[in-house]
């Protein structure tokens, strides 16, 4: 038991909090993952592109430094650089430069030679460059000129520097080369813009695809939800459609539950019917035996048989109503049909009185509940009306607002004084001992109507007799 509870609690974490949207959860999860994955992709692509561009620039700078190193010869007062036949390094501020310098003991840098293209300017020397060069003798270090260099062009440069020793000189010499990096940077920016636009489009597309996938994927679930709602509202008797593998078992279980409920109700009803049959025939025998005899015993038997009959009727209906309440889910019963079959039958039964039942009900009006119960409710009310009427009985039914209906049964009989109306609804009360029937009719109607969450009220009809107003749930 504890294991099961624990397992249940474990699952609970994955089931999600109640009241949250499954659709929204699926879309959020997928969207979050898409955004993270695409952002990472974009970042990797742009940095890689920039790095490979800088690597290309680095190679070019390294070549230039090699050329300068080859052309450089140490002299007693410094170095001389032979002419390098590379047009860009000769043309002023062309964007390609070299420079040879030495690091003085105090850390300052003194320029020994520079390319004509520098036009007397100096390449930017990063603050910790001398120290780092000395730490890694012979290696090529590259860095960006922050762009403070040289009006009017303001070329942002990529700079490489390397500390090398020259034959015939003990002090090492710093060889530097610089190249304009603005084109490369513009390229990188353009590339990044394309990448981000493409990724954004991809991301939007993916989120839409996820949304559609969730909507289409969950469609059977929505359909099942609607079908269950229809069953509850009485528009369908069971789940009719076939569903995908994952939820078909759910649909089947719902149907099995409906069948089971129906079965329980049927069983209860059969049981109740059998019991009624078993009890009432002996009651008939006792009643018939006592009839026509004038002695105290016969009188007691007659009276007590009536009481027993009333009790049996009442409790049998109670049991039926309970069975129905357990059933819960609604059935759709056309009201007009039931009124019609009752009217046809009762007019025949009360033919000697020539009773006429005038009824009106919209064709599409349906009661949300079992046919047998509506038959019981209307049958008793209409029979009662016929019993008391002089000639006319009027039945009218109609929808009244959301999910409700009203049925009115009236007659032109003597009616009931106001103070007696409540009393007849009580079980077993019988106002007229001579009238045929059990006298239980109205209390049964009241019981059943209440079981459906409805209401029975009695009043006076303009026909002159009793007016019974029923409020009951209606099927859509």
């Amino acid at each position, binding site marked *: 038991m504890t294991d099961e509870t624990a397992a249940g609690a474990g699952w609970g974490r994955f089931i999600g909090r109640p009241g949250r949207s499954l659709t929204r959860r699926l879309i959020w999860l997928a969207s979050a993952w898409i955004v993270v994955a695409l952002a990472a992709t974009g970042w990797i692509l742009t940095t890689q592109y920039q790095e490979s561009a800088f690597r290309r620039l680095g190679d070019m700078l390294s070549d230039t430094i090699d050329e300068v190193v080859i052309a450089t010869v140490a002299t007693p007062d410094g170095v001389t650089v032979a002419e390098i036949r590379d047009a860009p390094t000769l043309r002023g501020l062309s964007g390609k430069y070299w420079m040879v310098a030495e690091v003085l003991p105090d850390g300052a840098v003194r320029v020994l030679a520079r390319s004509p293209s520098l036009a007397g300017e100096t390449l930017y020397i990063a603050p910790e460059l001398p120290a780092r060069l000395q730490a890694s003798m012979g290696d090529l270090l590259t860095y960006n000129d922050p762009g403070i260099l040289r009006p009017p062009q303001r070329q942002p440069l990529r700079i490489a520097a390397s500390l090398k020793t020259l034959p015939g000189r003990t002090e090492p010499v710093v060889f530097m080369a610089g190249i304009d990096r603005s084109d490369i940077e513009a390229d990188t920016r353009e590339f990044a813009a394309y990448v981000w636009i493409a990724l954004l489009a991809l991301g939007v597309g993916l989120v839409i695809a996820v949304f559609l996938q969730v909507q289409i994927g969950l469609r059977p679930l929505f359909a099942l939800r609607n079908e269950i709602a229809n069953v509850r509202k009485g528009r369908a008797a069971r789940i009719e459609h076939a569903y995908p593998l994952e939820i078909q078992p759910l649909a089947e279980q719902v149907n099995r539950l409906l069948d089971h409920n129906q079965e329980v109700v049927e069983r209860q009803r059969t049981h109740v019917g059998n019991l009624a049959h078993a009890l009432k025939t002996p009651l008939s*025998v006792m009643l*018939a035996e006592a009839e026509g005899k004038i002695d105290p015993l016969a009188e007691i038997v007659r009276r007590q048989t009536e009481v027993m009959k009333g009790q049996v009727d009442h409790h049998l209906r109670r049991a039926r109503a309970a069975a129905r309440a357990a059933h819960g889910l609604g059935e759709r019963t056309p009201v007009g049909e039931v009124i019609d079959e009752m009217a046809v039958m009762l007019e025949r039964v009360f033919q*000697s009185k020539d009773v006429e039942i005038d009824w009106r009900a919209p064709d599409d009006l349906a009661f949300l509940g079992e046919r047998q119960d509506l038959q019981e409710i209307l049958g008793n009310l209409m029979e009662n009306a016929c019993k008391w009427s002089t000639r006319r009985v009027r039945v009218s039914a109609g929808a009244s607002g959301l999910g409700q209906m009203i049925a009115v049964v009236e007659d032109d009989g003597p009616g009931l004084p106001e103070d007696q109306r409540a009393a007849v609804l009580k079980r077993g009360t019988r106002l007229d001992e001579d009238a045929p029937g059990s006298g239980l009719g109205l209390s049964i109607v009241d019981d059943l109507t209440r079981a459906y969450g409805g209401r029975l009220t009695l009043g006076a009809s303009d026909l002159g007799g009793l007016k019974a107003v029923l409020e009951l749930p209606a099927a859509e």
Partner: protein
Amino acid sequence: MRVLLVEDDADLSRQLKGALSDAGYAVDHAADGEEAHFLGDTEPYDVVVLDLGLPKIDGVSVLERWRRDGKTTPVLILTARGAWSDKVSGFDAGADDYLTKPFHTEELLARLRALLRRSAGIAVATLSCGGLRLDPKAARATVNGEPLRLTSLEYRLLHYMMMHQGRVISRTELVEHLYDQDFDRDSNTIEVFIGRLRKKVGADRIETVRGLGYRLTPLAGETEAA
């Protein structure tokens, strides 16, 4: 008057038999559905008291068979279940009245007297219009042999139209012949009843003649039934 009493409970049968004999009836008794069906089929009874819960064949089936064979003997059904659905199925099968057990013997006798009075009316010829038949004596109508369930107003409407079949009947004429003096004579309600009647007998049988009224005709291809 001959009465067939169909009841399986021995004590109740004995009591009812005694009461019916005392009231002057010649009583035959059947204790199960098979025997009841046989007796009802072969003997000319004036009225039948039929319990619905019977061994072998249930009461509703027995009644259905009689009606199918054209027996119009008035039948009063006895039901112990007391559910309206049982009464409705009894009436659909062709019952004329019901009593719920337990009942007073006097009430049974009163009901039987009423049934006999009703069926004793003067013999009137059966009316027919195509597959539609109406028996004024039993106050029953059938369409292609199937019993129709009609309220008294619908029955009167059909009766009047069958007596004047083939002729256009105005709404005013229908109102005058269908309602008593004290009823509200609203000719619009005729439309409602014509609508209901159409649903029960078949819409094509009642023709609307615009501005004039209604006409009952046999369906095309239907010959006047014998």
